[in-house]
């Protein structure tokens, strides 16, 4: 349909406004990440959107490489928290995808686990904060407190609904003829699932995995309550970035924020095609 | 007031020209089929008539009124989409009275006109049914009724039968033609199926590569194709076209078809016209239905590749590649083995300029 020039002008104006609003916080964080200490707190006329003296000091500082005399040096560099985030989110994703994919297949093909859809919706509805007391008790009892594998376990459970719903829609849509043919050939059902179905579902499986990873990577609350020191994740670690020398370590926080933003943004772009389906529990597809 | 005139109509999409200089007049109450293969510009033409696309150049007139710039909602055209675009989330009634409701007619009028239309289309028992899940011919009727209820001066139909089972198409064609008679409006019907065009249209406009090739009644385009494209496109199978040279024989002017032999001599009028064309290279054309087997004399001799016997007719595939010729016989004739000798009926012979493809008309 052809659009009038008035409409086109309006469209570009509206989109540019939206882009500006979208980008302001991101640009600010990026700029802050490259600002030297003296520019962190500049206000009023001194406030700058582009660092006057751009520096990598904030990043170096995070990894214990800085030579600035922020006398209160970091007791812990950001390396371990980044590792903690990667491990807990990664293995949490593995748990969610493993259990979720298997269950989705069981329900989609054999009608097993009819209680799962409701149970998983309830799981998603419920605010994690409200079960954290018993979870802390259990995790302590099982010696899972402050471990990346303990976090991975709870992440696996919390994101199980997404893994399940996503994979269920994928399985529901997948034509069954090939599976049936393989069955006729004499394959066992388990073999069909492992050797035929899963390889065919590689692309959807990858999208769902990345999506679940983003969710796990984003967590703050659970890690806040289930980790204390050894395996704090990036967002929890970030709150310790303050010093008496300079106050809030805005630059370091922004630098770490940028680092934390990298995986989801890249993964998000990679799975753009399936993002909508993921976000809507598989109700919408592309 | 419902005649349509297209003057020098051009449509370009970027550097691609979808429609080149189209001039066409569609008479009031006429059923015109826009026929052509996909990408020929027929849908673009119709979209411009409906107002969905703006022409790059040229004018579109409804009667005397220039419609360029008039938004599509105000052109008073009815449009039947390829998939009917029925509002499946509404009932049949809501589909039928949609336009009336949207244009703010009084409720009483809305009901009366919708019900009258339903009665006309035998849809009355279905009025309160959800439109989703109805059969295609019902959907077609709803689609037409939904537009017809607005009393458009012009009806545009975009390949309405292309999604329909072949078996059902005949029924739908009949129904559509009947409806057109009933409403008596100008109809433009886009199709790539020459059978639909031939059976329903008053006139056919054949298009290819954005160029209008020929306009005429079904018989005109069938019998007197303006060029090789039309000749090949119309008819099923299309006209046999063989490259050749004019050759003087003792029985008059004929066409030398190379390995296939020399054709029977051309009828006088055609021979005269061929002389006048001034170029010995011609394309020799004849309809597959209009050939007969000959035992002796000038004939085209071709090996029989395949005989499709489909009951009432037998289609013979003769020769290979460039020289392929098809012949259609009624019934189940007994055929000799090996090479067949056939001759086209002289009256059905057509010659085309080998370079331009334009018909060389005799008489």
């Amino acid at each position, binding site marked *: 349909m052809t659009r009038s020039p008035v409409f086109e002008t309006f469209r570009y104006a509206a989109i540019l406004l939206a882009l500006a609003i979208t980008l302001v916080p991101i640009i600010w964080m990026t700029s802050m990440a490259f600002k030297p200490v003296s520019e962190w707190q500049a206000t009023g006329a001194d406030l700058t959107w582009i660092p006057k003296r751009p520096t990598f000091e904030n990043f170096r500082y995070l990894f214990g490489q800085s030579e600035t005399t922020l006398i209160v040096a970091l007791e812990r560099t950001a390396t371990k928290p980044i590792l903690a985030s990667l491990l807990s989110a990664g293995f949490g994703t593995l748990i969610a995808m493993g259990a979720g994919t298997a269950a989705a297949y069981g329900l989609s093909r*054999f009608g*097993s686990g009819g209680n799962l859809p409701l149970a998983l919706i309830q799981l998603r509805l419920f605010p994690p904060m409200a079960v954290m007391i018993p979870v802390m008790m259990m995790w302590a009892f099982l010696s899972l407190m402050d471990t990346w594998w303990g976090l991975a376990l709870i992440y696996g459970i919390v994101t199980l609904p997404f893994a399940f719903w996503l994979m269920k829609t994928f399985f529901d849509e997948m034509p069954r003829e090939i599976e049936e043919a393989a069955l006729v050939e004499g394959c066992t059902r388990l073999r069909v699932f492992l050797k035929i179905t899963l390889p065919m579902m590689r692309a959807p499986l990858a999208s769902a995995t990345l999506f679940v990873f983003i969710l796990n990577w984003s967590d*703050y609350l659970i890690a806040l309550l289930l980790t204390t020191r050894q395996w704090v994740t990036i967002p929890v670690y970030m709150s310790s970035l303050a010093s008496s020398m300079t106050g809030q370590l805005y630059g370091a926080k*922004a630098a770490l924020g940028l680092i934390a933003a990298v995986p989801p943004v890249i993964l998000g772009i990679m799975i753009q095609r399936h993002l909508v389906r993921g976000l*809507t529990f598989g*109700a919408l597809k592309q | 007031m419902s005649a349509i005139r297209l003057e020098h109509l051009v449509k370009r999409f970027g550097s691609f020209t979808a429609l080149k200089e189209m001039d066409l007049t569609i008479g009031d109450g006429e059923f015109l089929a826009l026929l052509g293969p996909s990408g020929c510009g027929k849908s673009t033409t119709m979209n411009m008539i409906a107002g969905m696309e703006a022409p790059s150049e040229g004018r579109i007139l409804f009667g005397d009124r220039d419609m360029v710039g008039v938004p599509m909602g105000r052109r008073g*055209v*009815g449009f039947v989409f390829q998939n009917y675009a029925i509002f499946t989330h509404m009932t049949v009634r809501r589909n039928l009275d949609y336009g009336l409701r949207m244009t703010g007619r009084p409720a009483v009028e809305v009901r009366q006109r919708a019900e009258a239309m339903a009665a006309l289309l035998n849809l009355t028992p279905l009025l309160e049914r959800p439109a989703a899940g109805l059969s295609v011919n019902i959907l077609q009727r709803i689609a037409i009724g939904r537009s017809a209820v607005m009393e458009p001066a012009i009806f545009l139909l975009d390949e309405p039968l292309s999604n329909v089972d072949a078996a059902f198409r005949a029924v739908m064609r009949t129904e559509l033609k009947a409806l057109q008679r009933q409403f008596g409006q100008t109809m433009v019907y886009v199709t790539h199926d020459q059978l639909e065009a031939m059976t329903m249209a008053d006139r056919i406009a054949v298009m290819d590569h954005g160029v209008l090739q020929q306009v005429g009644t079904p018989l005109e385009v069938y019998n007197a194709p303006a060029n090789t494209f039309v000749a090949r496109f119309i008819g099923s199978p299309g006209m046999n076209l063989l490259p050749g040279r004019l050759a003087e024989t003792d029985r008059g002017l004929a066409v030398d078809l190379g390995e296939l032999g020399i054709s029977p001599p051309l009828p006088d009028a055609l021979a005269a016209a061929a002389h006048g064309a001034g170029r010995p290279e011609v394309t020799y054309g004849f309809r597959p239905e209009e050939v007969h087997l000959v035992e002796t004399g000038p004939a085209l001799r071709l090996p029989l590749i395949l005989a499709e016997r489909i009951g009432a007719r037998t289609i013979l595939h003769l020769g290979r590649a460039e020289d392929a010729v098809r012949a259609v016989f009624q019934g189940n004739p007994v055929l000799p083995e090996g090479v067949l000798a056939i001759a086209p009926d002289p009256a059905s012979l057509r010659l085309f300029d080998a370079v331009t493809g334009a018909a060389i008309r005799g008489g």
Partner: protein
Amino acid sequence: MSVTDTPPAPPPTAASVPADAVRLGHWLTLPAQILILFIAVFPILMQLYISLTDWSPLSGRPWPRAWELWNGFANYADLMSDRRLWSAVGRTALVMIVCVPVQFFLGLGLAMLFVDDFRGKRLFYSILIMPMMVVPAVAGYMFFMLFQSGGPINDIFGTLIGRPVVIAWLSDPTLALVAVMIADIWQWTPLMFLILLAGLVGVPDDQMKAATLLGANAWQRFRTIALPRMKTIIIIALAIRVIENFKIFDTLYIMTSGGPGVATETISVYIYKVTTQDLIWGYVAAIALVILIVLSVVAVLAMRRMAR
């Protein structure tokens, strides 16, 4: 992109499935079932138990001995008259009532601009959906910086109106709530945009054109064709945001810790504070169970609707 118009083939019923398939089905669903039981049974039982007591980690005894502090339904009674809790509930509802519709309409508006093709569409699209990829906690720190009275947001406003603006966003109870909402809207409008765009693109173009040819104007087309066709999508999009908004914590807590005072305290923040500061865990358990019951009812009703 389209709503799955035809519902997926109904899951096969037990009767129609051969025995070996049933067995495999059970094995395949087992891990998920175990995980759900694992996270459901103990927490519910424990919360049920301690919710009937005055137990607190400060009470000097491990929780299995909470019965020594039995108080019957006193926690549930307290909950009814807990003004701070109810104002947190009200505030959560307020955030939801403001943010979800704003996100919806902004998202819808943007989505409408993106239905057909234009130059730069892909790039703009990629940028516009970036906020939802930012880790919420990071967004919290970002907005904390942005909303300082000498910070960039006031700077922008100042530039726009030509004189310095000093708005103490995070120190004013009303503005703090506004700031928190702005952050939420910033982060989650893209989600609405993404989903609604998928929905809009899924509305058959022919139907919109047909409606136009039948004389419907833009608003009528939207109301009578696009909207009904997108109903499912819209419900899903709204439901997702309502659910997530109900749980709002990360960004908000980092920006304001629920402050100033209790001005931005939502249900999750309130529970967090009561859990970590007041340490009255029997009471927290009571709140948690009430939430669980209410949400379960909601979930069952929602599932029933979905099934229809």
